[in-house]
């Protein structure tokens, strides 16, 4: 577990270094995810490897990690109350637009690809 967590943190640190050296607008952890993906592709870990257990453990409780930032809502209740309509409607409508567009484009192109392959 400790070895696994250390592996994840090392990937994140390598990611943090890479984004700064290459000057790309990506957060370090996202680059670290790519680093770990490459490492996993190069060498398949055993099912009970530390990194697998650490990854599964963290992902099982991924939602917990968003709570502290979410509690920040208490600081912005005044702003939210003052512009409740544009905020709530803007958030909901743009969320739905992104969800539906992504699903429509992906489903459409996947179907198109399948039809082409069948022909």
């Amino acid at each position, binding site marked *: 577990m400790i070895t696994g967590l250390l592996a*994840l943190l090392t990937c994140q640190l390598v*990611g943090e270094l890479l984004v700064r050296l290459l000057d790309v*607008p*990506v*957060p370090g*952890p*996202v680059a670290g*995810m*790519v680093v*770990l*993906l490459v490492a*996993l*592709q190069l060498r398949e870990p055993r099912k009970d490897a530390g*990194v*697998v257990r650490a*990854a*599964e453990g*963290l*992902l099982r*409780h*991924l*939602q*917990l*990690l*968003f*709570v*502290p*930032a*979410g*509690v*920040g*809502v*208490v*600081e*912005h209740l005044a*702003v939210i109350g003052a*512009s409740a*309509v*544009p*905020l709530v*409607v*803007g*958030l*909901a*409508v*743009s*969320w*739905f*637009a*992104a*969800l*539906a*567009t*992504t*699903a429509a*484009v*992906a*489903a*459409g192109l996947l179907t198109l*690809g399948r039809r082409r392959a069948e022909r």
Partner: protein
Amino acid sequence: MNVVEAWDAVRSSPVFAVALTLAAYRAGTWLRGRSGGSAWVNPVLVAIVVVGTTLWAVDVDYGTYLEGGSIIAIFLGPATVALAWPLHLELRLVRRSAGPLLSAIVVGSGVAVVVAVVVTRSLGGDELLARSMAPKSTTTPVAIALSETVAGVPALTAVLTILTGILGAVAGPRLLTLLRVRDERVRGLAVGVSAHGIGTAQMLQESRTAGAFSGLAMALSALASSVWVPLLVPRLT
């Protein structure tokens, strides 16, 4: 030290904040279990309400809470790295349809930005709110950084981002079912683009494939948004 002084020291300690957060999250997962795993009961939402109410009741400000809260939040970094694991297991499936997936992610994250700014502005929201709203579909650390780039309010963006994630986790799977989207890859992708990590956490419970595609979409839409937001927001506000 009398009782009041002792309690003062305890309620403003980081340990109190960590324990409160864990207890509130447990309450959330317990409620979800009681509801038979319903997506309507979101553990993040429950935990935020419980922590927020408790902080108000015991009179602790957010800054003090965050001294302990940030100890938990720091694990968001390695947890994001950990998304490489389900992605690794599904990579063959991803590779087979890379073109459609990438196109959907790029288009979807652009739509999220444009519609957020346009709708917020047209309903009378001010420019600052629209700029803070623009990056809210992307993952929290990227959203905060992008909000700074376009002169929004980063702390407000963080809150809007998490509210979007909760909305995505609660309503996303249902709406996709209503829209007759059954392909697990497409479901994961759509939730990952529109509702980042909190949506991904929900999709990981739906299936490994949906979770992997959601994590992938979250990562790639973070990249796409890093281009879209600075490009589109100055033109729209």
